[in-house]
């Protein structure tokens, strides 16, 4: 009998005051009882609208019915068919705008907590299962994957399962891409990312860190000298944007990328960390996306009073609702309809304050989008000793500039068709490197699609 409760089982979480002082995970995860109870809310619809909302097409009702039966390993096996990183996706996917937005239960009441169930299943497997992945027998074909973020790892995992010999090249000293340098520990514990990567290694994926493709080795060399038959570029969108306003190069102004990398990858938040970070007392974060929320919540945990400065209203915040709510609970202040004009010196070369322009929303334009416009003469100054610019990122030009014939868009994104094929035969691309900054799951979807296309390409090439 289905559980007809209109609401999701709430996610057990760390107390907001407590957690705003530590880097431990905020959401604690369902117990077995909660998971089974939540799974019973699923009506097992015949036409499965939820699956259509999932970029990697996980067999959602099927895995949920396994959970309802208490067969958690069975549920894991079903998810694994479609997703290489369930413990990650269960945590960072915007389910509310994907699978859960299509859930029939959401028409009247709340949707089934698909994301929380996915997370539960992956965590249960990681804690209880002794079944480790085994390396399939090799088909003798070599594929190179550039970047070890969600797109690259997914592509690598799918190809390895088909027997390809996959090498992943990572520029940093640690694999995981944005999952390790960008998303903070309290949202995605690094031990979980590590576990997923260990799983890929068990499948036979070879991960080479400290190799910058375009510098250490070029794509053409991967093909001509190293014998890779196909290449997947999942190098992400790592280049930070700045506002080009006066004072932006003062000491204490960070890109969100730098701030988060110092904290997440380099562990600057630890008291005995070897990498320094400025621990501001009053921090202003400019931007309204998930990265802005991550940066703000990190700064909060380092002991600062934090203000998010965003030029539109709360309704337009691009961040996930859950992230905005978590940020508010932790005491982060939102200064909306405000756009920075300049950053002022404290007299010693450090940030002292930020001057902002008050904004209002214009009448919606033809596209229905209201633009923020300045309110003439209304400016104000906020006192701050650190500013974090979270304005978005663009793809890194290193690969483009060293790969002849690889077409890119004006803004830097690599041109690729639906299968991920670029303007060069045998070279595929996907994730943020193609789309510009987007989500983990979209990158995974792209990695998956390209893995299938690469498989086809290599098979056809060798049949002819």
């Amino acid at each position, binding site marked *: 009998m289905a559980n007809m409760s209109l609401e999701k089982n709430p996610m057990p979480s760390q107390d907001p005051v407590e957690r705003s002082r530590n880097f431990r995970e905020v959401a604690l995860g369902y117990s077995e009882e909660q998971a089974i109870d939540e799974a019973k809310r699923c009506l097992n619809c015949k036409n499965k609208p939820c699956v259509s909302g999932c970029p990697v097409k996980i067999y959602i009702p099927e895995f949920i019915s396994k959970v309802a039966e208490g067969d958690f390993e069975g549920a894991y096996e079903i998810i694994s068919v479609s997703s290489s990183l369930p413990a990650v996706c269960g945590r960072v996917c915007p389910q509310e705008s994907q699978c859960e937005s299509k859930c029939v239960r959401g028409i009247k009441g709340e949707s089934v907590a698909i994301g929380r169930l996915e997370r539960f299943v992956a965590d249960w497997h990681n804690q209880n299962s002794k079944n480790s992945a085994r390396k399939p027998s090799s088909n003798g074909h070599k594929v190179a994957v550039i970047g070890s973020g969600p797109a690259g790892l997914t592509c690598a995992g799918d190809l390895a399962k088909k027997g390809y010999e996959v090498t992943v090249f990572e*520029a*940093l*000293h640690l694999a995981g891409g944005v999952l390790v*340098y960008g998303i903070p520990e309290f949202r995605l514990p690094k031990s979980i990312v590590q576990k997923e990567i260990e799983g890929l290694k068990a499948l036979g994926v070879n991960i080479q*860190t*400290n*190799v*910058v493709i375009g*510098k*250490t*080795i070029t794509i053409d060399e991967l093909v001509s000298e190293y014998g890779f038959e196909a290449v997947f570029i999942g190098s992400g969108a*790592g*280049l*930070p944007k*700045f506002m*080009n306003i006066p004072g*932006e*190069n*003062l*000491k*204490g102004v*960070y*890109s969100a*990328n*730098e701030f988060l*990398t*110092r904290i997440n990858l*380099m*562990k600057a938040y630890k008291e005995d*960390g*070897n*990498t*320094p970070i*400025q621990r501001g007392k009053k921090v202003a974060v400019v931007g309204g996306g998930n990265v802005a929320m991550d940066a703000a919540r990190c700064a909060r945990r380092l002991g600062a009073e934090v203000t998010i400065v965003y030029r539109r209203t709360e309704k337009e915040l691009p961040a996930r609702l859950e992230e905005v709510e978590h940020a508010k609970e932790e005491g982060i202040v939102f200064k909306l309809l405000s756009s920075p004009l300049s950053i002022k010196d404290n007299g010693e*070369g450090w940030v002292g304050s930020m001057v902002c322009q008050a904004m209002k929303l214009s009448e919606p334009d033809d596209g229905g989008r209201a633009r923020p416009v300045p309110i003439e003469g209304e400016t104000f100054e906020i006192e701050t000793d650190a500013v974090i610019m979270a304005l978005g990122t663009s793809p*890194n*030009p*290193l690969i483009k500039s060293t790969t002849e014939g690889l077409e890119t868009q004006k803004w830097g994104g690599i041109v690729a068709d639906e299968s991920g094929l670029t303007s060069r035969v045998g070279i595929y691309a996907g994730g943020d490197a193609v789309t510009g900054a987007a989500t983990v799951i979209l990158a995974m979807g792209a990695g998956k699609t390209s893995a299938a296309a690469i498989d086809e390409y290599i098979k056809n090439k060798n049949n002819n």
Partner: protein
Amino acid sequence: MFEIIRKKELNPTVTLMEINAPLVAKKAQPGQFIILRVDEEGERIPLTVADYDRENGTVTIIFQVVGATTEKLNHLNEGDCLCDFVGPLGKETETEGLKKVAVVGGGVGCAIAYPIAKKLHEIGCEVHTISGFRNKDLVILEDEFKAVSDKFILTTDDGSAGEKCVVTEPLKRLLDSGEKYDCVITIGPLIMMKFVCLTTKPYGVKTIASMNPIMVDGTGMCGGCRLTVGGKTVFACVDGPDFDGHEIDFDEAMARSSTYKDFERKAHEDTCNLFKKEVK
């Protein structure tokens, strides 16, 4: 892991290490840099490539012990391994077509100036080198520079070796005497490079400065190494590290380079305590 093949103390604070890193050695060019981590918990630090041996697959770095990481690095010996070593990063120094160049190095910056002087010499360019140090005990690579320079001038602040002056004095003298350089290339402390650029500006001589700001990833991702050059924000790691010295905002670069001064001083002291060594 990246093994230390050779270690040599060049002076009491400057050490040379030859590191086994075949992929980097295969591609490295003068002016480029690498990023290393000494151990699992270590910070990432950029160091300019001082030399490379493509056949043996080694890259030479020369560093001054200035902080916690270089202190730890200096305690490693031949046979020990570095945890991470990535590169070559940044753009190489442009040498093509140069016929006559003045290379002006200061302190440990001379270690980076040397491979450039050597390359210029190899392509048949006339090289005038001015190399400046605080005192005679700190002088490095004197013989090496002499071997690749058509003119070599050594200066020390206290006059204990070479001329008693700063590097800009002989540079000005050479320019006044009518030497016509295609380019002046300067590598050393920011304050020295600033004054080299101020010295050459009135003569209209193109001047290239090699910048070494604070950075994390070295691939354009963090933006921590940003500089203002010609009124525009650039990233030293991918747009440089060489820039037109007459366009660089050196005062801003100097301010930014001091961001973690207090942290670094304390970290260095802690590391020295760990090694039971007196802080210099």
